[in-house]
């Protein structure tokens, strides 16, 4: 027809295929996510872990294409497309894990400690808007992603990813420059230990007996409830399952947190107590476990941390630190510890736990498991224990360096200095901050002084880590020669 351009004269006259339409829509979403992940691969990350995750995600969403092609119903496509949408969380994590948002020292510090517990670990450190710390064992999650969503015949491509000790650690962005607060990371490294304990305990005869005992209590509780509500008799299974599930969750969450607190103390010593006390201070000391996180009462946690520190005599060693420079700080440190002890000494949290019968069952079970759990935590922390007796010897010089305005990273002869443990700058920083007075002016520390202290602490950690890397490199070169 003159005046018209026919772009595709042979365009087939196909009937609209609904399944095909939604299949293409799901592919479109997948492609969108793939492109955004690819964009992120150009960012500078403090550690190789981000590239590793990006590589996994690119492979995963490429292979997911085969699963989309195989889907035989809209509902299958709906589940897959929702997975793609949900996976946007990875963009958020990666978007914040680069060096503009996450200090390199923070990621390297964690990797250093984690490697001692699990060699060749992969750690992604991300700041988050929420004021909380968190750890996610990403390795099993990625394995689960592959098993659930990738056709079996394509899964071998992911072998190298699914067996990696990969952890995602989140911290509150507001505390980015405050390395002292990140002594909480010791607690985060305790979470995998706590999970190992729960798996181990479930197979022990004592664990099985405790489980059976808790079950009997739950059955009794449900029976009593149903007696007063005969109209619910036909929902007995549902009520039993929900109650037992809740008891299990409350109990496991309590042990996860308490074991992690103990590991945090083993890894960071008194710094973990100072950091946790500051974190918990914001809330109610006696709040009983609440959905969805089911944290144990803060007072109980503080008590447990003091118990672990006392068993190790860490606080005694810290406050008896020799030298005139230490003495001027230790009275305030001792006062702070006394303040913690006074809070932990109250037992109001125990009464709060008795208010709900399922919480009570869960916590009676926690009390039965705790001695074995703490022993387990101490054993597993062995490779990464913080030696307070060595730190005690270094502390006076580290405090002196802070007073002089230089990073507290080494001690001894300036011509042949000894690099301290990477955690000791944090302890020195806590001690200095607890005193809260500028050594040169005698005035209370201003916000500017705290900023300077934060920078000194961060630089000290970076120097210690760099020195360690340099020594490793030198040693390796010597061996080659």
């Amino acid at each position, binding site marked *: 027809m003159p005046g018209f351009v026919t772009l595709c004269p042979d365009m087939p006259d196909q009937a609209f295929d609904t399944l095909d339409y939604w299949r293409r829509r799901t592919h479109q979403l997948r492609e969108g996510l793939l492109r955004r992940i690819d964009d992120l691969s150009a960012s500078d990350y403090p550690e190789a872990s981000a590239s590793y995750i990006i590589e996994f995600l690119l492979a995963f969403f490429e292979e997911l294409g085969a699963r989309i092609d195989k889907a035989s119903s809209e509902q299958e496509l709906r*589940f897959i497309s929702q997975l793609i949408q*949900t996976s946007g969380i990875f963009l958020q994590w990666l978007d914040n894990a680069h060096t503009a948002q996450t200090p390199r020292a923070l990621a390297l510090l964690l990797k250093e400690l984690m490697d001692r517990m699990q060699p060749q670990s992969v750690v992604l450190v991300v700041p988050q808007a929420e004021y909380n710390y968190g750890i996610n064992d990403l390795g099993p999650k990625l394995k689960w992603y592959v098993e659930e969503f990738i*056709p079996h015949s394509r899964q071998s491509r992911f072998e190298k990813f699914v067996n990696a000790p990969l952890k995602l650690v989140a911290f509150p962005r507001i505390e980015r420059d405050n390395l002292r607060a990140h002594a909480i990371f010791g607690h985060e490294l305790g979470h995998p230990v706590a999970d190992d304990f729960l798996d181990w305990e479930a197979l022990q005869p004592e664990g099985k007996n405790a489980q059976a005992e808790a079950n009997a209590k739950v059955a009794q509780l449900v029976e009593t409830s149903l007696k007063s509500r005969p109209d619910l008799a036909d929902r007995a299974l549902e009520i039993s399952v929900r109650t*037992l599930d809740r008891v299990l969750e409350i109990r*496991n969450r309590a042990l996860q947190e308490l074991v992690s607190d103990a590991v945090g103390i083993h890894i960071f010593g008194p710094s973990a107590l100072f950091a946790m006390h500051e974190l918990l201070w914001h809330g109610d000391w006696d709040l009983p476990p609440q959905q969805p996180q089911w944290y144990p009462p803060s007072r109980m946690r503080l008590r447990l941390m003091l118990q672990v520190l006392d068993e190790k005599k860490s606080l005694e060693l810290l406050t008896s630190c020799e030298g005139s420079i230490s003495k001027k700080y230790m009275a305030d440190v001792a006062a702070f510890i006394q303040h913690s002890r006074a809070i932990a000494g109250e037992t109001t949290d125990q009464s709060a736990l008795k208010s709900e019968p399922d919480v009570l069952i869960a916590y009676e079970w926690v009390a039965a498991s705790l001695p074995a759990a703490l022993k387990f935590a101490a054993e597993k922390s062995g490779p990464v224990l913080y030696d307070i007796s060595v730190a005690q010897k270094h502390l006076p010089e580290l405090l002196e360096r802070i007073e002089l305005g230089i990073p507290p990273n080494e001690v001894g002869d300036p011509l042949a200095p000894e690099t301290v443990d990477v955690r000791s700058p944090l302890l020195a920083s806590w001690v200095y901050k607890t005193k809260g007075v500028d050594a040169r002016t005698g005035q209370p520390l201003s916000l500017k002084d705290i900023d300077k202290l934060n920078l000194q602490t961060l630089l000290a950690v970076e120097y210690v880590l760099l020195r360690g890397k340099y020594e490793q490199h030198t040693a390796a070169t010597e061996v080659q020669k």
Partner: protein
Amino acid sequence: MSAPGHEFQESEYLGLGLLAVTSAALIDRLLLGQPIDDDDKYTLLRAKRFLADVSSGAKLVHSGVSSHATAVDNVRKLRYSVEPLQLMQEQIKSEEVESVFERVATSLEESVQKGAEANLRDDLVMAKDFFSQLQRFLMALVESRKTRTGDAGLRYAMPRYA
């Protein structure tokens, strides 16, 4: 400090939902005598494992006995299954869940190996019905947590002067 894996809760619902919807479709193919490939067999064996885990969860609830370390997982799978169980055409009494699911799991495994023989068909129909209900339940669970369009989460954060 936060519960490990909290961010992955929704992915768990989606993974199980996909397993359920795919398994229901594949069981239908078994009942119709249509061929399935190795990837399909892998999916059905995972579905069989899910049924066996629900059975273990029911055993734990009723007798307090746990056969392995995954008690929490099994009880959670049973929790997901309670509502679908109530909506199934063939009602299963609560005290029978353990034995019925164990039997249906075994029948499913046998059908994957040798096809839907006559003595297995009733159990396959039951498994198909269960997975159909389960996928609906899980999709509803995911939907209940979603905000499709909204106020960018500012409803509670911003002061309202008007």
